[in-house]
């Protein structure tokens, strides 16, 4: 499968009053055609920054590309100018944001917001644009599209607004859709509808999706590949079956364990991961999960483990993979 996006050794930092914050510390992954890649992790792990950096949407002071490449169909995004990015955004790569309540301009009609980008990219006439807007609303299953197209965001419910956001992102048939927590702010029932919509559209339009989320249920439903991020790094990566059936990194394991399930025993308390992620002003030398890991070893504190491949696509970065750790492993079983 050809790759539509190749991220190579990407490093993104922020210059702040207190110093440099390394938000993304050397990550690499690919996204193939029509593939759905999920990036999971806690708040602050760098997944949103990664997403925004693919479209150069980060405020450039204070953010800056410290190193690496983002190759979109062979061309490096990191090196592109703002003008060049304006050609790509909205037409080749699109983004759907988390909070539908605040992601739409309250003083502009919905129809106009949907086709605004299209008008710029394809130079449509007013009439054509209007038609297209209605078409898009139909595509995302918004009822009464002819009437709705002239309404304002506050006249729509949360789920409807997110559909509008999707319409907005898809209007120019992008090749890559980045969805940053698209369902987090929605009710569970609406979540399912939105996900189905996205799957449907992906099918129709041959689109690749990068799905950013902290909700593993969503991941299982939709993704082909899963990337687990922690403190700005990828700690585990693989296809969805590998990750869910055979997680190798202690963080991944804990993440999976913390998803509340309906069939939990009565006296089983909710699992959670103690502690908080480290401050990225002074990034740890070794494995960032050190202080929260049940299997932490002395070597973990000072040295960052290399990726160890378990299958062709599945790897994790953990000293437990090292032969010398086998004894430790036998002591406390990794569940």
């Amino acid at each position, binding site marked *: 499968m050809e790759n539509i996006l190749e991220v190579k050794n990407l490093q993104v930092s922020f210059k702040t009053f207190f110093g440099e914050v390394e938000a993304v510390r050397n990550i690499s992954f690919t996204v193939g055609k029509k593939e759905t890649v999920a990036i999971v992790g806690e708040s602050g792990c760098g997944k949103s920054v990664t997403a925004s950096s693919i479209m150069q949407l980060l405020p450039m002071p204070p953010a800056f590309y410290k190193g690496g490449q983002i190759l979109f169909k062979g061309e490096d995004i990191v090196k592109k100018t703002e003008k060049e990015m304006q050609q790509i955004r909205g037409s080749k790569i699109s983004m759907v944001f988390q909070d539908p309540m605040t992601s739409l301009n*309250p003083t502009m009609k919905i129809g106009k917001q949907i086709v605004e980008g299209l008008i710029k990219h394809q130079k449509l006439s007013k009439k054509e644009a209007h038609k297209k807007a209605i078409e898009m609303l139909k595509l995302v299953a918004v009822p009464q599209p002819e009437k709705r197209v002239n309404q*304002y965001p506050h006249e729509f419910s949360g789920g409807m607004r997110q559909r509008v956001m999707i319409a907005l992102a898809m209007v120019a048939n992008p090749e890559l859709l980045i969805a940053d927590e698209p369902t987090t702010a929605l009710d569970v029932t609406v979540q399912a509808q939105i996900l189905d919509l996205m799957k449907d559209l992906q099918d129709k339009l041959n689109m690749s999706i990068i799905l950013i989320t902290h909700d593993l249920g969503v991941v299982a439903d939709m993704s082909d590949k899963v990337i687990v991020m922690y403190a700005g790094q990828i700690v585990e990566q693989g296809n969805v079956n590998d990750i869910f059936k055979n997680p190798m990194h202690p963080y991944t394991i804990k993440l999976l364990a913390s998803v509340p399930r309906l069939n939990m025993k009565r006296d089983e308390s909710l699992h959670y991961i103690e502690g908080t992620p480290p401050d990225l002003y002074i990034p740890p030398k070794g494995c960032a999960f050190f202080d929260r890991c049940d299997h932490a070893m002395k070597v973990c504190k000072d040295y960052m483990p290399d990726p160890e491949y378990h299958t062709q696509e599945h790897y994790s970065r953990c000293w437990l993979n090292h032969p010398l750790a086998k004894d430790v492993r036998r002591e406390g079983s990794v569940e």
Partner: protein
Amino acid sequence: MKKYLLKRFVMSIITLWAIVTITFFLMHAIPGNPFAKEGKMPPVVYENLQKKYGLDKPLYQQYLIYLGNLVRGDFGDSMKSRVETVNDMIERGFPVSARLGAQALVFALIFGPALGAMAALYQNKIPDYISMIVAIIGISVPSFVMGTFLIQFVAKNVSFLPIGGWGEFKHTILPSFALGLMPLATMARLMRSSMLEVLNQDYIKTAKSKGLTKLAVIMKHAVRNAILPVVSVLGITISNLLVGSFVIEKIFGIPGLGMFFVKSIGNRDYTLIMGTTVFYALILVLMLLLVDITYMLVDPRIRLTEEGH
């Protein structure tokens, strides 16, 4: 939409009525009741007042007579001037004041928000500092101080600019500037903070992600939303502008309504004071209503919240 308009219209009428009533009873509360003193004004004038206002009748009747006159557009006779009625003076003075006020307002409206938006876009850089210094000066230096300063240091040194009077465009430059500086500063500061807030909003990110140019994002998304708070204070701004004009007209010797008003205060010409006050109130209330309508047109959320329920 209609409900909102109706509500604002009714509020306007009530406010107007409130001002008229307060003015009336205040004037009649003056110790010594100048309306009753014969000795203080020429007997001819007193007789006229007597006829018109029924000065020997009980107070509430006088009030109703006054209201009646007002509704008919009669603002009264001056107590001191034998020649002119209040209406005459209003006719003379109003166009002048209106011109001054309008010019100052336009000046403030054009440069205020523009300055504020620029300050926000270049936050903490040079344009921001310059704009904010101008704004701070604008709100700290009272218009009369600015006016005298301008006369003293600018008009006296620049032959083109007169130190006072009225008649040609050049006469309006300094006064409009002095009058409009404070509103300009207020709007600039408001626009700046509003813009900063808007620029942090998610929908700005959405707009960028569509591939729009920076200019399009700024104008169609940022400014469009940031201007709302500025419009909502437009009413108060105009109200302050009005009162500021009294002072400016006095300093620059401009024969507008404000000058009449100030003189009438000095003369204690009570009917003139009442008349001009009520007239001012009328203009003000009208302007406020216009501002409300403008705000409604500009913010779709207002329009529809009234409707959809």
